[in-house]
Structure formats: C-alpha cells, structure tokens
C-alpha cells in the first residue's frame, strides 16, 4: 500500500515538474524571441531581414558588423558610453547611499520626495536651459556635462530603491553596533553597507542601464568627441534608406555589454540572496 502511494506520488511529482518547466519555457519565449530575432538579423543581409515568410535558414554575413565598426566610430562611442555610465553610477552611489540611509532611518519623507522630483520633469525641459548653462561654463562636449545629466536620471533611482531596501533592514543592527562603540557613520559603513549587497546590486544594474541607454541628453550635450552609443544607432537611419542590417548590428553591439554586465552582476545577486545575513 505504502509503496503504491509513494510511486503514485512520484508520478504526480514528475508530471508536476514537467508542467512547471513547460510553463517556464512558454513564459520565456515571448521575452527572448525579439532579442533572438535582432541578433540573427544582425547577421543577415537586408533583403533577408524583411523577407516574408521569415527566413529561418540563411547565409550569415558579418558585413553589417564590419560596416558598423569601420564606417562609424563605434569604438569611440563604446568608450564614451562606458565612461559616462560608470562615472554616473559610481558618483551617484557614493552620494546616494548615505542619503538613502538617512531618509530611511530618520523618516525624512520630504527629502525623499524632493529627490524623486528630479525624475518627474520631462527630459525635453532640460535641453535648452542645460545647453545654455553648460556652454556658458564651457563644459559642452565634455564628459562632465554628460555625467552630470545622467546622474540626474540615475541618482533618484538609486536613492529610492535603497530607501526601500534600508527600510527592511532592522534597526537593531545599527543599534547594537553603536552599543559596541561605533558612531553612526561607522555603523553605516561597516555594518549596514556590507549586508546591502542585493539592494545595491539591483540599484547599480538599473542605474547603469538607464545611463547606457539614454538618448536625449546625449544628443544635445555631446558633439563628435563624446557621442554615445544610442546616438550611433541612428547613424544607419539615413535620408534615403534605413540600413536594417547595420541597425541590428549596432543594436547588438549596444546590448551586448549590458547583457554581459547583467550576467556578471546577477551571479552576485544570487549570492546575496542565498547568504541572507539579515534573516534570522
């Protein structure tokens, strides 16, 4: 009797697992498919890209990538995007993490909302005033102007994600550190920050992505020296034709580093989740 029940349960478990995996795959397909399509299109000639019925089998070509790197300065764009995204994220973390902690701990809601306000203004409103401002202090076409503009996007994001995260961190941790003789700054640096890994990594990932993909500010505040990747992709949308192959190749080049970064950080996110120093 017992054996039969066990076997029955095992069978049920098996089908349940299969169903679960099928569900996962079904959920994944619509999310992945467009990206797969973009990546494969980057290796097709234009006629194949717009073909209907879609050409699943085709002769791959690297002419699009060649064109993207050689005819346009994509190497430079890659560098510029990286410098700006890294700097904007880093500086925002340095000034944003303490701010988030203070707002969370001391319930400074007004400051929190003020920080959020920066995200509320539509990007267009900044274009002309910033151009005037940065031109007057001769910072146009420098990384500083770009970094500052990207920080306005990224800083509130980091602050708000971390406010929420710090809200979940029990205050006893800080208090016990202070009992041991630390002041608040030390408690923050040595106790709270190290266990905030998952939150910080989420905030960092999102902020890097927002900066990496920013288009409008980079269009206006940069000239040829500091041009970033998203502007580069429009290089293939020209007056007389849209070079779809190159657009797709450029898209792949823009997306690839972001993907690699996500992959890298993601491993740390997992680690942070399983360590769970906060729990218990």
């Amino acid at each position, binding site marked *: 009797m017992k054996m039969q029940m066990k076997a029955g349960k095992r069978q049920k478990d098996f089908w349940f697992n299969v169903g679960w*995996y099928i569900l996962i795959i079904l959920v*994944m397909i619509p*999310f*992945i498919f*467009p*990206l797969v*399509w*973009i990546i494969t299109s980057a290796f097709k000639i234009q006629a194949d890209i717009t073909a*209907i*019925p879609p050409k699943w089998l085709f002769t791959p070509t690297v002419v699009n990538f060649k064109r993207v790197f050689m005819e346009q300065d994509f190497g430079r764009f890659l560098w510029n995007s990286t410098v700006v995204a890294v700097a904007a994220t880093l500086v925002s973390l340095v000034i944003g993490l*303490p*701010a988030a902690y*203070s707002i969370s701990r*001391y319930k400074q*809601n007004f*400051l929190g*909302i003020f920080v959020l306000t920066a*995200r509320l*203004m*539509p990007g*267009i*409103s900044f274009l002309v005033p*910033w151009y005037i*401002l940065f031109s007057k202090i001769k910072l146009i076409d420098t990384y500083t102007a770009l970094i*500052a*503009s990207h*920080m*306005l996007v990224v*800083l509130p994001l980091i*602050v*708000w*994600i971390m406010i*929420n995260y710090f809200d*979940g961190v*029990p205050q006893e941790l800080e208090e016990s550190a202070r009992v041991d003789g630390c*002041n*608040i*700054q030390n408690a*923050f640096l040595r106790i709270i920050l190290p266990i905030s890994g998952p*939150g910080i990594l*989420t905030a960092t990932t999102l902020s890097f*992505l927002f900066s990496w993909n920013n*288009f409008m500010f980079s269009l206006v505040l940069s000239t040829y020296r500091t041009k970033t*990747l*998203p502007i580069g*992709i429009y290089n293939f949308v020209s007056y007389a034709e*849209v070079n779809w192959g190159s*657009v*797709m190749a450029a*898209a792949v080049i*823009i*997306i690839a580093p972001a993907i690699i970064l*996500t992959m890298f950080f*993601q*491993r740390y996110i*997992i680690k942070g*989740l399983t360590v769970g120093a*906060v*729990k*218990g």
Partner: protein
Amino acid sequence: MNRSKGINIERNIKWIFPLPTVLFIFLMMIFPICYTFYISLTDWNIASIIGTSFIGLDNYIDLFQEPRFYNALALTLYFTFLAVGVEVVLGVVMALILNQDFRGKNVVKFLLLLPMVATPVAIGLAWTLFYEPTIGLANYALKILGVPASEWLASRTMVIPSLALVDIWQWTPMIALIVLAGLASLSTEAFESAVVDGANWLQILRYVTLPLLRPTILIAVVLRSIEALKTFDIIYVMTAGGPGYASETLNIYCYHLSFGYFRFGAASSALIALFALVLGFSLLVLWLRRRYEV
C-alpha cells in the same frame, strides 16, 4: 576634543548624509525648472515674426481649451495604466517564480532580464518591423495561429495596446528585479511561523508574502509609472504620435510643440502640465503608501 567633534558630526548626520545628493539635484534642476516656467508665461515662438512678450497665464488657458491636449492626457493615462498594470502583475509573478529553487533557475533568471537591457530606440525600430502588417512577423504569427491579422500600429484602436505591449515586454523584468530585491530583505520569521501553522503555499502567498511585499511593489509602481507617464523613445520611433493623433501622448505632444512647431512658450506650459501630472500621480501613490502602512 575628539569626543566633541564626534558628537557634532553624529548629531547632524541626518543632514550631512543627504546633503550632497540634495544639493546636486537642486543645482541641476533649479535653472531648468525656473527657465521652463518663465518661458511658459511668454509667447515665445521662433517661427513668428512678432517679438516675444510676456503673456501671463494665456498659454495655460489656451492649453486647457485645446482638444489635442486632452487627447494627449487621456492617451497618456490609458497607456500608463495599461502598461504598468500588466507589468506589475507579471513582474510580481516573475519575481515569485524566480525566488523558487529549480534546475536551470539561473539561466531563466538571466534570460528573463534581457529585454530590459536593450536600448529603447533599437527595440522600437525592431518592433516596428515586427508590427508591419504585410511583411512583419506579428501578423505572420497570427496567421499561423489562425487569428485574423491586425493593423497594429496603424490601427487607431490597436496602436496604444501595441505600444503598451512593447513597454510591457521591456520593463516587466525591472519590476521583477525590484520585487526580488525586496523579497531578499524580508525576514524569514513570518514565513516560518506560517509554515508551522500549517499554511499551504497559496495561503502564505496571500496572507504573508504579498502584504509584506506591498511597500516594495508600491515603490516599483511609483518608479515605473513615472517613467511610463513620460514614455518617449519607443512611441517616437514607432509612430511619432500617429495614426493621426491616436498615439500622441503628452510627452510626444510637447516634443511636437517644441521641435516641430517651435512654439516654445506653448510647449513649456504643456511641459509644466506634464510635470504636474507626474507629480500629482507620485504624491497620490505615496499617500496611499502612508495610508496602508500600519
């Protein structure tokens, strides 16, 4: 000596910690906000021969009588509610799934995060090709499934849902990520006691997980809604507000006023209106947060 210095910093830490952030934001924002507001009180139009003059609130009065403004407002709200609504539901589900243990979990996690990293302009161009009624893959897929073809972006009724679909595809992972981080900071006590009390997974979900996640979900909703209300890149690339004005959201309308028609005065008033909308919305959600925080 050391001690008094220490106490001073400590007592004021609540001001020192946020100071650089607040100062930075203030400096970067104050000029543009004042500038935009000032311009909105003028009739600055670089296409007209009449010089610019101060006209007070006339721009706002005109704006509130302009049917195209209300069209833009309605479309903005429609798009946002549709997109964010679906994203939140899907995102929470995704986060809960990703929080489980199963084989291949890391691969799935990675793959599901990918749409978010793609550059909006590239995505917009690609999806435009998908949605093309004759040579696009979307109708091809519908044909295979035996569903009648749609005009997608060219249809006045389908254009907003089509655009929302792209937004949903791209940003659901962001919600999932934020909720996932929130799940990570939850203490396990509540879960453990629920299991001890004999609750099954559905009950744990309803009575423990979701309530604990509420503040996190709310943050995700606020952050995502702010972005959604201001969505620009994909709409601009895919339809530029068309067909007719059927997808002209407030931000696109502002863009047309500024860089299409060069009516900077009118555009500034519309920008202030958009700002007020987003502000009002955020305050509303945050007030709800305070209200339900026990």
